[in-house]
């Protein structure tokens, strides 16, 4: 038993968890069988089984049954369910379209939508059941009030609210300006810009995957992997001092992990060229700056020539460039993560003089 727990503890480390989860997720999008009813039930059984058996471990139990964290447990099931539902419907419709039929939503009527009593009655029933669930919840899980705030004693770990845990996780890899202002700002701007960038006319009013492969993959990657998974990581697997603790590990406040991270400029000058760092910041960071510029300028061109030719031609240069910019920003996070895990890279561009580090 301890052996299995140790394996799970090791695999839950972000270095393994995120890549494995990303790969599994992206692969599963290619296989409609994953998203069938049977597939969904198997996934549910696995997750519930894992939770149920893990509850026997005292440390797991303490974290998971904490009243603050119970909603995040339900988040796992709810997000899982709705993702499954959407993709299941999507693949269903793809199958129907391949057979020449109309998608399920358009099957009954093209200009009418279910309302009375189907929608409204079901809403009423949902309200009743939801009310009952909430009341039971409030009776058995008391509000997580803690001791009077003490300015001389900050709680450890100090966690952001659950909806910002993704950003707090980003703070591990990026400096606060980027992780707290720039990237979240770009997320919002990106979401606002999406209607103008998305020119795919298909998928209007019905679930589909094949017709919107790229859009759905990118969105689900960003949402499920880069947002939800990081929330789950931040809730259950980050402990005191924001150290990683496996699900069955004791949250030891005194646990020390050395953080020996190196900037790119140090890699190049100190390790590579074996000289000291130049005193002029521009000289020092010019390799990193060039790299970043290349990333944002050359990559779109490369993609336009080969894999994203279709997009480039359909969307036009401006839309394409904006879309690529946002996409590259989004992928900079996993790229930085991988660089940190493999090379202990701290910053690609480190200009502390102007509080600007990438």
């Amino acid at each position: 038993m301890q052996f299995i727990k140790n394996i799970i503890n090791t695999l839950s480390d972000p270095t393994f968890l995120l890549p494995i989860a990303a790969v599994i997720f992206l692969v599963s999008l290619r296989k409609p069988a994953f998203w069938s009813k049977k597939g969904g039930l198997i996934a549910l059984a696995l997750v519930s089984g894992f939770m149920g058996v893990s509850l026997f471990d005292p440390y797991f139990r303490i974290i998971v049954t904490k009243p603050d964290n119970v909603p995040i447990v339900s988040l796992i099931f709810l997000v899982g369910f709705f993702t499954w539902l959407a993709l299941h419907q999507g693949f269903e419709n793809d199958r129907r379209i391949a057979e020449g039929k109309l998608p399920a939503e358009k099957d009954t009527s093209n200009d009418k939508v279910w309302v009375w009593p189907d929608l409204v009655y079901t809403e009423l029933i949902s309200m009743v059941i939801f009310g009952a669930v909430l009341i039971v919840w409030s009776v058995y899980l008391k509000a997580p009030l803690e001791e009077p705030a003490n300015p001389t004693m900050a709680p450890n770990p100090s966690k952001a609210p659950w909806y910002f845990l993704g950003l707090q996780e980003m703070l591990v890899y990026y400096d606060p300006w980027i992780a707290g202002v720039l990237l979240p700002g770009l997320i919002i701007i990106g979401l606002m810009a999406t209607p103008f960038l998305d020119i795919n006319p298909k998928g209007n009013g019905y679930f589909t995957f094949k017709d919107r492969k790229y859009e759905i993959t990118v969105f689900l990657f960003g949402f499920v992997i880069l947002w939800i998974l990081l929330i789950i990581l931040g809730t259950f697997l980050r402990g005191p001092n924001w150290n990683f603790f496996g699900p069955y590990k004791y949250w030891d406040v005194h646990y020390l992990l050395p953080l020996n991270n190196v900037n790119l400029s140090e890699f190049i000058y100190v390790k590579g060229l074996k000289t000291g760092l130049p005193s002029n910041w521009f000289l020092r960071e010019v390799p990193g700056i060039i790299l970043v510029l290349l990333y944002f300028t050359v990559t779109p061109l490369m993609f336009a020539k080969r894999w994203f030719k279709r997009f480039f031609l359909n969307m036009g240069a401006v839309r394409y460039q904006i879309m690529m910019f946002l996409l590259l920003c989004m992928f900079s996070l996993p790229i930085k993560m991988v660089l940190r895990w493999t090379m202990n890279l701290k910053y690609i561009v480190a200009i502390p003089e102007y509080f600007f580090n990438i």
Partner: protein
Amino acid sequence: MAVEKHDRNYDTRDLNRVFAIGSLVLLAVTLLMVADDYSRQWKDVQRRFHSLEASRTRREIQEVERALQAGEMKRLQSELKAAEDELARHRDAYERAVKAASRIDGEVYGKDLDFRFAKATYDSKKYKAEQEIAELRKERKESEADAKQAELDAVKGKMDSAKLALEAVTAEQAKAKAEVARLAGRIDDLQTKMTKMRATRDRLKKKLEIVDSSFTTWLVNAPMLDFMAPTLLIQQVVLPKLRHDINFMEIPRVDRCQTCHTVIDKPGYDKPTDRQPFRSHPDLALYAEQSAKHPIDRFGCTACHGGRDRGTSFVNTAHTPDNPKQRKEWEEKYGWEKMRYWDTPMRSRSHFYAGCYQCHSQQVTIPEAGPLDRGLRIVEVSGCYGCHAIKGFEKLRKAGPDLSHVASKTDEKWAFRWIRNPRSYRTGARMPSFFGQDNQKDAPKGDRPAASDLNDAEIEALVTYIWDKAVPIKYDPVPGTGNPTKGKELFDSIGCRACHTDDANEKFANRANPRAFGPNLAGLGSKTSQAWVFRWLKDPKHYWKETNMPNLRLSDQEALDLSSYLMSRRNEAFDRIPVPTVSEKTRDWLTREYLSARLSHAETEVKMRTMDTRAKKLYLGEKMITKYGCFGCHQIKGFESAQPIGTELTEEGSKPVERLDFGLKEDEIPNTLPAWVSAKLDNPRQFDEGKIKSWDEKLKMPNFYFTPEENTALVTVIQAFSKARMDVDMRRNLSADEAFIEEGRRIVRDHNCIGCHTFERDKTRTESLGEAAIRATIQDVGYWPPMLAGEGEKVIPLWLFNFLKGPTTIRPWLTARMPTFGLSDHETVAISRMFAHADRAEYPFESDYFKLEPASPDLLAGGAKLFTEFKCLQCHVAGAGKPERDAADLAPNLSLARSRLRPLWIEKWLRNPEALQPGTRMPGFFPDMKSPDKETLGGDAAQQIRALRYHVLGLAAKGLPAVTTGN
């Protein structure tokens, strides 16, 4: 049934089913929510209390009924029967009388009504008429005016006649009532008597109605209906002046303890069968009751006990178990778990008294708070404040002796053995053990020598350094030889035993015991020289200016005898302890370790080569003194302004438990502050167990070897040192009187006056303070040092001042000698003032009645006569010599009265000696102010007492008769 065919996505019947089930579930869940909301633990407790009260009341009713059945009640009942029979015989007359009485009642009512209407009419008419008549008279319309007046008079006449009618009828009514009473009065009488007898039972029955549960009770406490008049109520006391600090503001306390502890302020619930929480508070006269010193509606509970005031369940009020056994019991019985989110949990039973300190810190002793008091005394005696800064203890002198001249007192070998293990020399040594502790048992490892060798090196360095800095004193050889046997007699009788013992095996349960005030003198011969002891006995302050050892005004021969006795006592076992030689290797390793903390490796080697052995010893010695903080207790040259090395303890009781270092012992020691402090005091270095530390990083606190009682007392004290700040209004503020008394008490405590004397009249206080400890060593009551309770109203302050500065003999038969303490003027005045204020006597001057009202010749003659008649000189010493009587019967020298005693006190004393000094042998010559001598001064006791007073006061001037025997 016609079912219309509509387009449906779901089968309506299925939906209906789901809806129905869902709604029923919602209803059930709502009822669950209501039940969960309304079922509270405190309600169950109160219900339990009510049922206990109900069964208790029922039992009481039964007892009362049984008492009623017997005796008086039966007799009354038979009398009542007889009276009723009597009445039955006169039934007709009775009924007629009753009818008449009721008829007349009606008439009275009617006539009363008539009168009142008539009066009202008259009053209103009079008002109107007055004005009209006046008007008319002004206009000279006399006849009209008269007519109006006549009208008014007529109305008045009606009113008057109505009144007369009413009075007549009222008289008749009284007669009728009397008639009825005559016939039935006896019955009423008897019934009143019986009601009175049943009063207790009726009261109890009423109480039972209230307390017993019934449908009404259930209804009135039901959810939603309990806003009207519930019987299950939260009881709370709001205390705006006692505030609770929640870090960003202070909120008034709202103590809800009485919700469950229903009868905490009522007497009578203290039998063993009464179980918590339905028990009275112990010592109700002091706590909780309305008339107590700490009534519950002014002080509440949590101000003293800690805990969460607004909580209403056993767990969330932060009750604290006292020991692991109680903790287990609570976990099983009440599902107890630690209330994690409250920073000030309740103090457990052993540490209740910690709460007294926040208001009573200005008092020198708080005898009612035993453990706290003892703990504070232990802090003073052990010198904790020498290493740990504690606010309020900064001004105390250092707890250990001055080491400025130690080289002239003892030798380095003795000092080495002493420092290594003080207990090997002296049981009950106050000096704690710094070396040989649990974290200094490492075996040699590579380069590093064994820890015990390193300790030896440290001690050797320490001793060398101190010896180097000591200022020598030249001691002349002793003038002659002493007799140890005589010395022992002196030691036993002269008063040394009030502060010292010379029994190597005598252990005191509490190091704050007055007889442990001075060190245990067994084995003195192993430590020092006779010359030193001789000079010390003759003049203690020559060696240590702040010593508490007083000067006993010994003659040279006495000092020789005593010193030779003390020097004859050696500690053989201690003498045999070898002093190891420290190897150069060990010394080098240690020196290198400390040098390399500041210098680089290369520089260290250079420096090492320049230091010879002695230089290394001195270097290490200085480092060790800084490391172990010896200057915290001892004065050492060069360290006069060094700061204490330990953590500040002023607010240690409020320290969050997360800040305490449990080392690797988190599983063994409960995660609470009291448990940590207790473990720390028990074995301070235990938290180093299993830790990897460099030599200098190891824990340094020495081990005091506290007994379990001392440990509990000290944990109480630490919890008393909290950051709670009491409102000035609520604190025990000392009045001017009390401040003077406390100042004197402080000096009395610090110089161990209580070693010989009692100061309190209250026997329990005397015992709890351990006053007059020397009495345990003196068999004969006659040789006990005098009791000082009541000294203030007794002696003239100036005399007391001079006496304390230079004692003279008052009771020549006593072998114990009042020492010269060498107090400053201020301290002496403070003591004298303390006595006066304690007795509310005038201070510092009182009239000299001897001069103010000179005595008449009659009075003088009478006084002389009474003095001989009452045979005063049979017991009282006068002039030189003493009467042949038991020491217990002897009395002070009366020639001192003039300069020593307050005149009015002499009279008070003569009136009733037993009241002033319980247990005195002075006879009371004037019981109930009646004199046995009926002739002198007309047999007037008051005059006789006055005469005696004058006589006694005149004795000094007259000179006294020679020694008398009997007669």
